[in-house]
């Protein structure tokens, strides 16, 4: 028997429902009167899940890096060895998937044949088929993917930054793994990981568009076996508060140095609502510190230390196993940019935040929250974090409105500690400065 609970936001003029039933994944249906319908299955299984107790086993096992991503690639083959992309294509549905640190997400959008495509997606996720020959072929494809990323200086810079920030947490390892680690993957290992993580209690289903929510649960029941398995037991890494290195470099084919500044934080609240609050505060704070309207960017630009805006983000997974701020760009002298950034943030901690800046940047974050409700794709993906956290996505707006300048100042001083700042640089080849 399903329970259907509706959530509404009168200010946004939007609503959605959550359909729950024992032993079935939680289903979220967000009605949207657009031409396309978007559906996804988000499995709480990502690259950081490399040490865990397999379903029914007493001991932890550690798997090679890159298994979650490899598994995602191999899920697009059916029992007869056929490419499932072709089945989606035959329905006019555009399907794809991605793997990140804490999740694997399978999705499609379509303008017709929704029920068939949705059934296909669910069936695919629940019914894997791995053979030696397919695994061997996939190793060749993923090797090319790894090589492609190895040529992208921003990606290299980012990966090195995480490795310099984290001692033991697997976020320090590339989602794809390495050519050597994926060579160890076998069909048996993929089946073990699938059995452990692809259970009803460890995934959510989200649909946004014109859809009959009553039919959705029926299609789920027809394609995903009911499962009483709880969330798998993951190994809890004891990550030290200190960073590994303050500066790390590599060399690649770049016109001028590429840099990323990371600020690590291991003091993470266990409460999901507190983490949401921190997430929103960080969006306001990072805007204030790094945006093109801010003092830091403009002083660096005017002094010709940077020529393009920072890319910046606060990254934290809903499970709360890591959180950090990263700001990146390119500069002839990344060390000077790093030094000025650290000085600016330290000074900001001392002098406090300007109230007008805080209010303006909060307005920006609020506007972005409102703006994302135009797209079925953005809505569906935005709902994954709240669904994993077990909170209502519409809570974001009132929580944001309740934040104060003082909240931001407290977080600023608690989080942005100078000894937690790390600089990663990718230098041009041949430049040995």
């Amino acid at each position, binding site marked *: 028997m399903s329970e259907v609970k509706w959530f509404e936001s009168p200010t946004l003029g939007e609503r959605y429902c959550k359909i729950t039933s024992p032993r079935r994944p939680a289903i979220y249906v967000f009605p949207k*009167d*657009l*031409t*396309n319908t978007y559906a996804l299955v988000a499995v709480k299984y990502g690259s950081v899940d490399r040490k865990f107790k397999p379903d029914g086993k007493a001991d932890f096992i550690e798997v090679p890096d890159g298994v979650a991503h490899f598994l995602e690639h191999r899920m697009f083959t059916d029992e007869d060895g056929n*490419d499932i*992309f*072709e089945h989606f*294509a*035959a329905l*006019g549905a*555009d*399907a*794809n998937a991605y793997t990140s640190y804490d999740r694997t997400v399978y999705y499609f*959008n*379509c*303008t017709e044949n929704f029920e068939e495509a949705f059934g296909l997606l669910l069936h695919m996720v629940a019914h894997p088929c791995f053979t030696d020959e397919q695994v061997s072929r996939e190793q060749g*494809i*993923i090797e*090319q*993917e790894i*090589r*492609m990323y*190895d*040529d*992208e*200086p921003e990606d*290299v810079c980012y990966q090195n930054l995480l490795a*310099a920030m984290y001692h033991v947490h697997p976020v320090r390892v590339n989602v794809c793994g390495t050519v050597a680690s994926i060579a160890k993957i076998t069909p048996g290992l993929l089946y073990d990981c699938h059995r452990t993580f692809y259970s009803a209690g460890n995934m959510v289903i989200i649909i946004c568009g014109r859809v009959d929510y009553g039919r959705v649960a029926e299609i789920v029941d027809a394609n995903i076996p009911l499962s009483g398995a709880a969330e798998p037991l993951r190994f809890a890494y004891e990550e030290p508060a200190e960073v590994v*290195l303050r500066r*790390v*470099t*590599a*060399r*690649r*084919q*770049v*016109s*001028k140095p*590429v840099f990323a500044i990371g600020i690590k934080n291991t003091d993470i609240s266990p409460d999901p609502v507190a983490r949401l609050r921190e997430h929103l505060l960080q969006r306001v704070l990072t805007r204030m510190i790094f*945006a*093109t*309207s*801010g*003092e830091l960017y*403009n002083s660096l630009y*005017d002094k*010709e230390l940077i*020529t*393009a805006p920072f890319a910046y983000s606060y990254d934290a997974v809903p499970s709360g196993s890591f959180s950090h701020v990263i700001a990146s760009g*390119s500069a002839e002298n990344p060390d000077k940019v790093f030094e000025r950034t650290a000085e600016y943030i330290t000074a900001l901690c001392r002098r406090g935040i300007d109230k007008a800046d805080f209010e*303006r940047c909060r*307005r920006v974050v609020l*506007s972005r929250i*409102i*703006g994302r*409700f*135009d*797209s*079925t794709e953005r809505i569906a993906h935005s709902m994954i974090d709240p669904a994993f956290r077990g909170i209502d996505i519409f809570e974001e707006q009132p929580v944001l409105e309740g934040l104060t300048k003082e909240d931001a100042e407290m977080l600023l001083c608690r989080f942005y500690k100078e000894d937690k700042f790390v600089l990663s640089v990718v230098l041009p*080849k041949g430049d040995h400065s």
Partner: protein
Amino acid sequence: MNLQEIKISDSARLLVVETDKFKKNILSMSAILPLGPGTTPLDLLFPKVLLRGTASCPTNASLKKRLEELYDARIVESGSYFGNSLKIGFTADFLSDRAVGSPVLEGVIKLLADIWQRPAVDESGLLRGNEVNLAKRAMRDAIRAEINNTAVYAANRCRELVCAGEPHGYSVTEAEVEEITAAGLTERYKKVRDSAYLTFFYIGPKPAGKVAELLAGAFPPASCCTGMQRPDITPSPDGVPEYKEASMPVSQAKLVMGFTTGGMVFSDSPEYYAMCLAAEIFGGTPSSKLFVNLRERLSLCYYCGAYYENLKGIIYVSSGIDTKSREAARAEVLAQLDELRAGHITTAELDAALLSVVNSYRQIEDSPYSILSFCFGRGMLGLDCSPENFIKRIKQVTIDDIKKAAERIRLRAEYFLAARGGGEAECDE
């Protein structure tokens, strides 16, 4: 979807798709200019300088803060090639007045008019020298940074080969940027401002007449405009294939092949729709011939796809491969093209490509940016702007039409960027 056109003045018009579906709306402003050395470096640079400050918001910080106050409105400059022409201008996106209960559109129009007509200048009336120099530096950095992304680098080199001698084959050089002065840039900016015909495009809930009224008030007629400038979409001609290769110290090689299509550019002819579908079956989707064969069957690459540049009548095939797989990859690309030319297209391939195209065109109305992207080119060329018409026409394409379209596809250039070893070992400090 109904596209309305309203004349604002002898030097401007407004295209409007009136819709209340979106919380976020768009207003773009574009001018069509000649493409090539001399003017293009200036035309790509001055909009960047204009966005650094206006008479009323003279610093970059004050201008960006004004945008943030307008509920995170964004105004970005949008210089790009449009066939053999250059399109310059700005695109603004912003929340609708209704979503925030405030007159955001009026604020955006006022700011856009200030940026275009009243930029911050020095005491001599020139665009400020320090801002010009900083923008030049940023542009030079962007040109140099092309090597950071080898896929883009290789694609641009292939474009230069396919379109050699045509405006579309031109790329701005660092030397050209270095030569720009504040006086020269100001002179060019004023000339464009006073002579260019502006096309505005608004997608949002405000009635078209009201938007036109606001724009007419903010943008007086340009004093020297001689009328609308139509873009030049002369197709690239067929020719003897050109081959070029280079190497870089990277891990993965890039192979880009450029094919002419017998002059098949953007139009409303049945042959054009057949070419769109041919490109889709060739390499447009994960079920296309290139993806299925090069990646899935032969494991030669992580990506391999075809892109139809319909304003020049060129199909580009791009892939990331091992250096040693060059011959195998190019042979397979040509073999799959032969399959297409021979009409060896299964019903499943045709249906998948058709459904993919139909699915994506039906969704155009679901996003203001998709509407802008779909309607702008058609609006500039005076073509029908209805996705329904496109879908209807493409559904009429047969396998025989695709075979005939594929027969027009000719290899024109091949650029290969070999990989001679990737990253050096990291040196932790």
